[in-house]
């Protein structure tokens, strides 16, 4: 699909700039140009697609949907699924949380949304697709959605309402069921498309720097870190690498755009896939800044329980990934 891009990178580096194709520098630059362009294109396409989904199914409609129907347990699936397709912005997580709870959505279902939303987002998916291929990306997305569902179900069972901040509990008590809230927009698709692409372009622009830095670090490691370097320390399925990676990742606050290209190289150089995935999920799914935002609506105890549950499921996914991909070559 991206052959033409490879030809372009070859032409640019070897012909126009005139660096030897066999030299280290030539290979690194070629890799860099190809990857940056490929990922930016994928990012733009996926963001537009998600923008279209979101234009027709905004969070307000999701809330109504979850609220009005009896879904017999499937509400966890829907909340988690829409957490995945809704563009995530950490600044919206608190209003969303309260809005859902206020609208009468059970706490567990709200948590399912809140777990999946940062974990599976358009940026992570685009970069995964570019760096690891379709099979891996699908497994990642499905596992992320399942993780959100299970996390939500467990948290829902724990009866945690009493650990919400007082004013939030008040809101739940006088559940002011708001009916008028969602009126569907009637703007025709073609009129909306320019706006959606503009929005997508804005997202791509805002992370382009992280993509470039991430891929540059990746390209550097490609050239200078010896093959199987990590394998001697961390490879070969030592189980404890997964929890260790998660613990190291929580204080790190990085976005998917910068971290995935680095992780791809680490996998090539011998880190087990599950360990790398757990590390990445923990970096983007569990962040201290998000914790401090949530502090406004939850007690510390609830935040600890929430983070603890998510951590548990991330570690579990790490084990599952290591198990699935133990002997198969997933990178192609």
């Amino acid at each position: 699909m991206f052959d033409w891009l490879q030809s372009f990178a070859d032409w640019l580096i070897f012909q126009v700039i005139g660096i030897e194709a066999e030299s280290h520098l030539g290979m690194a630059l070629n890799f860099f140009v190809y990857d940056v362009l490929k990922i930016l294109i994928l990012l733009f396409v996926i963001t537009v697609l998600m923008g279209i989904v979101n234009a027709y199914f905004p969070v307000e409609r999701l809330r109504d949907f979850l609220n009005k129907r009896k879904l017999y347990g499937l509400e966890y699936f829907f909340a988690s699924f829409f957490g995945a397709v809704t563009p995530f912005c950490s600044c919206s997580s608190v209003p969303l949380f309260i809005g859902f709870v206020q609208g009468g959505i059970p706490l567990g279902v709200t948590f399912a949304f809140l777990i999946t939303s940062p974990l599976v987002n358009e940026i992570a998916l685009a970069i995964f697709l570019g760096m690891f291929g379709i099979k891996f990306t699908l497994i990642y997305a499905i596992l992320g959605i399942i993780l959100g569902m299970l996390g939500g179900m467990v948290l829902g069972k724990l009866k945690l309402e009493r650990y919400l901040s007082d004013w939030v509990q008040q809101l739940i008590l006088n559940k002011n069921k708001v009916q008028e809230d969602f009126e569907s927009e009637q703007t025709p698709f073609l009129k909306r498309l320019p706006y959606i692409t503009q929005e997508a372009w804005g997202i791509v622009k805002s992370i382009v720097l992280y993509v470039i830095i991430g891929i540059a670090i990746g390209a550097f490691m490609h050239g200078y870190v010896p093959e199987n370097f990590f394998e001697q320390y961390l490879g070969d399925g030592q189980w404890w690498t997964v929890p260790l990676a998660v613990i190291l990742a929580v204080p790190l606050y990085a976005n998917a755009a910068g971290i995935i290209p680095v992780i791809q190289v680490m996998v090539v150089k011998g880190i087990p896939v599950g360990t790398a995935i757990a590390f990445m999920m923990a970096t983007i799914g569990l962040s201290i800044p998000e914790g401090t935002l949530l502090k406004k609506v939850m007690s510390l105890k609830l935040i600890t329980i929430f983070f603890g549950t998510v951590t548990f499921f991330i570690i579990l996914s790490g084990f599952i990934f290591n198990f699935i991909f133990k002997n198969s070559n997933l990178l192609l």
Partner: protein
Amino acid sequence: MKIIKILGTGCAKCKQTEAIIKEVIAKESIEANVIKVEDIQQIMAYNILSTPAVVVDEVVKIKGKVPSAQEIIAALA
């Protein structure tokens, strides 16, 4: 005089929204009082799910995105 409230917990998009609104009212010489609301309890009183949101005279006009200049002019009309 219109009262414009920008609801947002202080993220980058909320700051962009504030900047563009100030730009528009200066350019169109609209008389308006721009207030930034950062307190989550006050924000939630407007029953929105995503920020930033723009409230004109206590009516939510725009939510969940950084508005364009035309959208702001339309919201103020």
